[in-house]
């Protein structure tokens, strides 16, 4: 499977009806593009200046490639997102964040509608992935509110064309740690004690948390 996030800062001048239309088109993506699985959107509540998250998945690189060439993608999503589109409602952001994701064998990230996500985007120092994985396991064992925890290498940012072919040399955040909680309050309260254990192994990190508005799965 391919797990994928699109994360955006919204233009403060964006008309509310256009934001609502983008929200609905992404939340309900499977109505239009059957390949899009587990689609959910959320508005970030942390102080990081990134506002909107669309999380979803694909069964395979082939299904992702069908999404990429689907007319709905170019007609509707690009309208809100591409820099040269007159109806763009997102902005470039200082975090160098847009599209991220990873490969997985099963949807271990899945949360029921109404749950909340805490998303940690990390730049790990070379060779630090295994030791940081132990830190995430410890954080999960310490916090009974954390109902899911997945750490994965962010392979998607450099392979967004088809999910396979590397088209960019590097990306700012090398890893994604997505945590699940039953409520937004629990996600917000989870804290970042892990930072003390990680030390210099984490070169850069930002955290977002949001309630999942899950879409159509029919």
């Amino acid at each position: 499977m391919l797990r994928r996030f699109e994360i955006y800062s919204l233009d403060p001048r964006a008309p509310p009806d256009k934001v609502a239309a983008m929200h609905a088109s992404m939340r309900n993506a499977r109505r239009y593009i059957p390949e899009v699985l587990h689609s959910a959107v959320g508005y970030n509540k942390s102080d990081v200046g990134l506002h909107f998250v669309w999380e979803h998945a694909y069964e395979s690189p082939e299904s992702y490639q069908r999404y990429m060439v689907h007319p709905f993608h170019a007609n509707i999503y690009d309208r809100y997102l591409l820099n040269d589109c007159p109806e763009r409602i997102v902005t470039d952001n200082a975090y160098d964040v847009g599209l991220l994701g990873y490969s997985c064998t099963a949807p271990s990230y899945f949360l029921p509608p109404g749950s909340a996500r805490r998303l940690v985007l990390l730049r790990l120092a070379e060779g630090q992935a295994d030791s940081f994985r132990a830190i995430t396991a410890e954080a999960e064992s310490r916090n009974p509110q954390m109902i899911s925890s997945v750490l994965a290498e962010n392979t998607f940012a450099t392979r967004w064309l088809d999910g396979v072919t590397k088209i960019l040399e590097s990306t700012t955040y090398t890893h994604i740690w997505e945590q699940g909680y039953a409520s937004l309050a629990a996600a917000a309260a989870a804290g970042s004690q892990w930072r003390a254990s990680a030390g210099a192994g984490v070169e850069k990190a930002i955290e977002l948390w949001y309630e999942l508005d899950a879409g159509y799965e029919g």
Partner: protein
Amino acid sequence: MDHKPIYIVDTLAVKPAQQMEILSLLREEGIPIMQRAGLELVGCYTTSPDLDEDVLIQVTWKASDHSAFNVIRMKFVTDPSWWSYSARASKLRTGGTRRFFYPTPISMSG
């Protein structure tokens, strides 16, 4: 519906005083960038600047299908000059649209 070829119609609204500036930007930067990426320029037309309203500039592009456009999009999005062009164009625009059109049974070219 057969989704090929695709015609991408950009309609850019600008103040009349900016008409020549955006046309220059298109001619010198926007059109060459998109052509390098693989889009075919079909036409570029403008409304009159003498109507006491925003000028509309309509640029029509053509690509063989959405698979081709996906590769073209990758090429222009990874072209640093597209980012600077887009930033400059967005400052000139007051509005507009991008819409995809497809052949109909009465299209002149079939």
